[in-house]
């Protein structure tokens, strides 16, 4: 078993043991509605998880269903609460904002975290912030699935080899889409189906069986864990002259009291990006010594195509492009990565150009060698290779080495450029936009939040952008050959686009940080006249949201110092849970205001008018929730009782000074689901 698999399993076991150490309280049987996920629903959810990694959605599953933002909404649709699903998905996605997969490696599995996490939140009636930590744990387990997939597919690649040896085009094509997908289906659909069908109740029991202060800590940690996701994304773009834009985005949210929509901020970002590039010029460093345009050392198709002989038709080109678009990663495996997909995409071309079994076999084998590049921009290579094959079939002296050298030479740099554009630039910006619109509730409440337009807009933009880019790259590669690559690179367009995108990215990231990272600290100075809470009355009066900003910057700094992101997750969780521990003071008091959400709303009054059953009795600055507000079960209201909550109640991140200060903690979250869920 691979090291990564061992680690993931070890982590899962550890988490499971820890969770089971807490007594699973026998909740009053009637107080908690039984968690039910119907068979049909479990089927759909499991199918969704499979499709996220399968090729059938034009190969775009990785950019769409794989992302928690989309997964959450879809799970919400399946389970009947799309708004909540969207919120949960967006919350989870924040942690995975910096997720990038290069070279056949994934650091964790956002898809599993999204699909199962959202199911847990909706069916288990937990609030989004509380479900964040378990979702991250689930995401880690998903790497086992990926490892198994990649390892098993190696065998299939070898089967493709035998078919190539026999000159069977159909055989190679079949190998790419059938056995590997059966394998993937078994690895993805089956576990998720059973987990969602039977496991949600179990997980929910564990979670709600935890002592209330642990649950509080979990929920509070949720607000802090989002900082990790944002900081991970900052690692890529928060550098150099574009740093100020991050703070600008942050300030825009603060200045507008959180009311400035993310779309407006994104539009502003586009304008600023243009201006920035205009005023500062493109490359920060001078370009390399000018190299004379290449004279065709390996025969790019600048030469006119010879008359006579087989010709690749436009239909062939498009069919080939489609095969690549869909099936590039279908038989993704450790040994050859995208090779089988490459060969599959070349089958229409080979069929057109070569007739004898020997030629066919040689061509198939030629294209089954190791290949890995960015699937979108890397299409240039395919186009160029197709052109070279065409010339070769027409008698040009192009040998295997020449074709291979174009592939091996270009696949690296185009992966670097392509990954930077796709996964490093376009996708995070689109995700941030989608998340911003989806409106992750800052304090976990679902009231009015969860705008499905967020993921829907995302789902519309992704295919539009990626399919267009992919098509253009492919065709340009064919018609202009590999000089297309150098032309684009030399023109400096790429640099300008990347810099402009980092302006936009920083702006949006700063806005996200301001909106969705929450942190509450409790230390309070008690005077005769009033209680002064350090955060609400001092720091936030200087600049609202100072503490969350500080957390994000601290996280970024720690990540730069090579602290492992997982270590940070565990650390933040531990601090949040420990800080909620009653040892440090009186047991938590649950407070809420008329909004049904946190008292300390850093950015202004409750914007949502809700028919809240909560009676905002507020003789003091800290109103207390009345027990009647929670029809199911009763939360702890008096300071000294321990609670048997029927749902998750959260308190603020409590930084304790044992014995000296009041442990007046503030409610950051309310599950609210009992009141508002349609079920």
């Amino acid at each position, binding site marked *: 078993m*691979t*090291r*990564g698999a061992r680690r993931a399993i070890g982590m899962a076991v550890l988490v499971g043991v820890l969770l089971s150490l807490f007594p699973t309280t026998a909740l009053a049987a009637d107080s908690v509605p039984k968690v039910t996920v119907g068979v049909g629903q479990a089927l759909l959810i499991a199918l969704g998880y499979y499709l996220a990694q399968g090729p059938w959605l034009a190969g775009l599953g990785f950019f769409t269903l794989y992302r928690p933002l989309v997964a959450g909404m879809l799970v919400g649709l399946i389970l009947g609460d799309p708004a909540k699903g969207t919120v949960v998905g967006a919350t989870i996605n924040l942690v995975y904002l910096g997720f*990038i997969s*290069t*070279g*056949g*490696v994934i*650091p964790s599995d956002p898809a599993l975290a999204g699909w199962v996490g959202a199911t847990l939140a909706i069916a288990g009636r937990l609030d989004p912030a509380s479900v964040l930590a378990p979702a991250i744990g689930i995401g880690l387990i998903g790497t086992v699935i990926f490892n198994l997939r990649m390892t098993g597919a*190696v065998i299939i690649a070898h089967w493709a080899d035998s078919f190539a040896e026999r000159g069977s085009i159909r055989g190679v094509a079949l190998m790419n889409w059938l056995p590997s997908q059966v394998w993937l289906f078994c690895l993805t659909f089956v576990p998720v189906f059973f987990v969602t069908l039977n496991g949600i109740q179990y997980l929910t029991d564990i979670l709600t069986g935890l002592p209330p202060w642990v649950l509080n800590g979990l929920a509070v940690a949720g607000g802090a864990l989002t900082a990790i996701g944002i900081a991970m994304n900052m*690692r*890529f773009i928060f550098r*150099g002259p574009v740093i100020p834009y991050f703070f600008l985005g942050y300030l825009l949210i603060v200045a507008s009291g959180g009311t400035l929509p993310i779309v407006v901020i994104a539009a502003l970002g586009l304008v600023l990006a243009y201006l920035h590039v205009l005023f500062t010029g493109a*490359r*920060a*460093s001078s*370009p*390399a010594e000018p*190299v*004379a345009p*290449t*004279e065709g*050392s*390996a025969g790019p198709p600048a030469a006119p195509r010879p008359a006579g002989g087989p010709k690749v038709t436009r239909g062939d080109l498009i069919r080939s492009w489609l095969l690549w678009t869909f099936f590039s990663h279908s038989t993704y495996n*450790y*040994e*050859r990565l995208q090779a089988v997909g490459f060969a599959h995409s070349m089958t229409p071309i080979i069929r057109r150009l070569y007739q004898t079994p020997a030629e066919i076999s040689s061509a198939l084998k030629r294209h089954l*060698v*190791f*290949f*890995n*590049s*960015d699937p979108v921009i890397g299409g240039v290579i395919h186009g160029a290779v197709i052109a070279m094959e065409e010339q070769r079939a027409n008698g040009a002296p192009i040998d295997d080495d020449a074709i291979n*050298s174009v592939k*091996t*030479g*270009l*696949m*690296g*740099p*185009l*992966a*670097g*450029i*392509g*990954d*930077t554009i796709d*996964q*490093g630039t376009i996708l995070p910006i689109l995700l941030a936009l989608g998340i911003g619109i989806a409106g992750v509730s800052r304090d976990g409440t679902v009231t009015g939040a969860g705008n499905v337009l967020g993921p829907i807009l995302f789902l519309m933009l992704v295919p539009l952008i990626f399919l267009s880019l992919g098509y253009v790259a492919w065709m340009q590669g064919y018609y202009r050959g590999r*000089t297309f*690559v*150098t032309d684009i*690179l*030399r023109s400096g367009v790429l*640099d300008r686009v*990347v*810099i402009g995108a980092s302006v936009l990215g920083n702006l949006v990231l700063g806005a996200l940080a301001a909106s969705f990272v929450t942190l509450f600290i409790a230390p309070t100075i008690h005077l005769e006249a009033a209680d002064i809470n350090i955060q609400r009355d001092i720091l936030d009066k200087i600049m609202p949201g100072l503490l969350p900003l500080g957390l994000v910057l601290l996280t970024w700094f720690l990540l730069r110092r*090579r602290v*492992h*992101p997982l270590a940070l997750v565990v650390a933040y969780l531990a601090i949040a849970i420990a800080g909620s521990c009653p040892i440090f003071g009186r047991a938590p008091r649950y407070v809420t205001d008329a909004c049904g959400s946190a008292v300390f709303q850093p950015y202004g009054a409750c914007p949502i008018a809700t028919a809240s059953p909560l009676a905002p009795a507020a003789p003091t600055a800290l109103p207390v929730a009345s027990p009647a507000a929670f029809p199911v079960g009763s939360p702890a209201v008096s300071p000294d009782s321990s609670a048997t909550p029927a749902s998750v109640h959260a308190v603020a991140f409590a930084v304790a000074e044992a014995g000296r200060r009041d442990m007046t903690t503030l409610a950051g979250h309310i599950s609210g689901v009992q009141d508002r869920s349609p079920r």
Partner: protein
Amino acid sequence: MTLTLVRVDDRLIHGQVVLVWLRAIDADRIVIIDDATSQDEFMRTVLTLAAPPGVPVEVHGLNSGVLRVADLAAGPERVFVLLRSPITALRMRKAGVEFEVLNVGGIGARPGRRSLYRSISASPEELAALRELERLGTGVELRVLPDDRPIPLGTIDRGA
């Protein structure tokens, strides 16, 4: 001063290198040493342009590369050396370039190569070069990404 990172990766500048390694080691300069690549005008152009702005890329053949790297190692810049093959690494070492660790990040599978670990394969000559490097005192570790745990050659290659 020493070389910040010497890495064998037959795809040279690509996603992991640009997006992850470059940031992780905060490199100021990339030096690619490979005879074949240095003679290919087209690849030189592509590689020099493929890195993000602000990080210059140089492509050298073995001889000029060894000299250049010796110069840079004495300077304050953080240098990221990229090689296509462990055989080049061995020749560098024998030519006098000191580096304590050789990071092997990716060698694609091909007829003639045997799979070592995940996406790292090696032909008998390449494996022999790695073993020789170990013998000469340079630690060979397989590590694809900076956050992975490095795998010393000895743990997966019993013949070393």
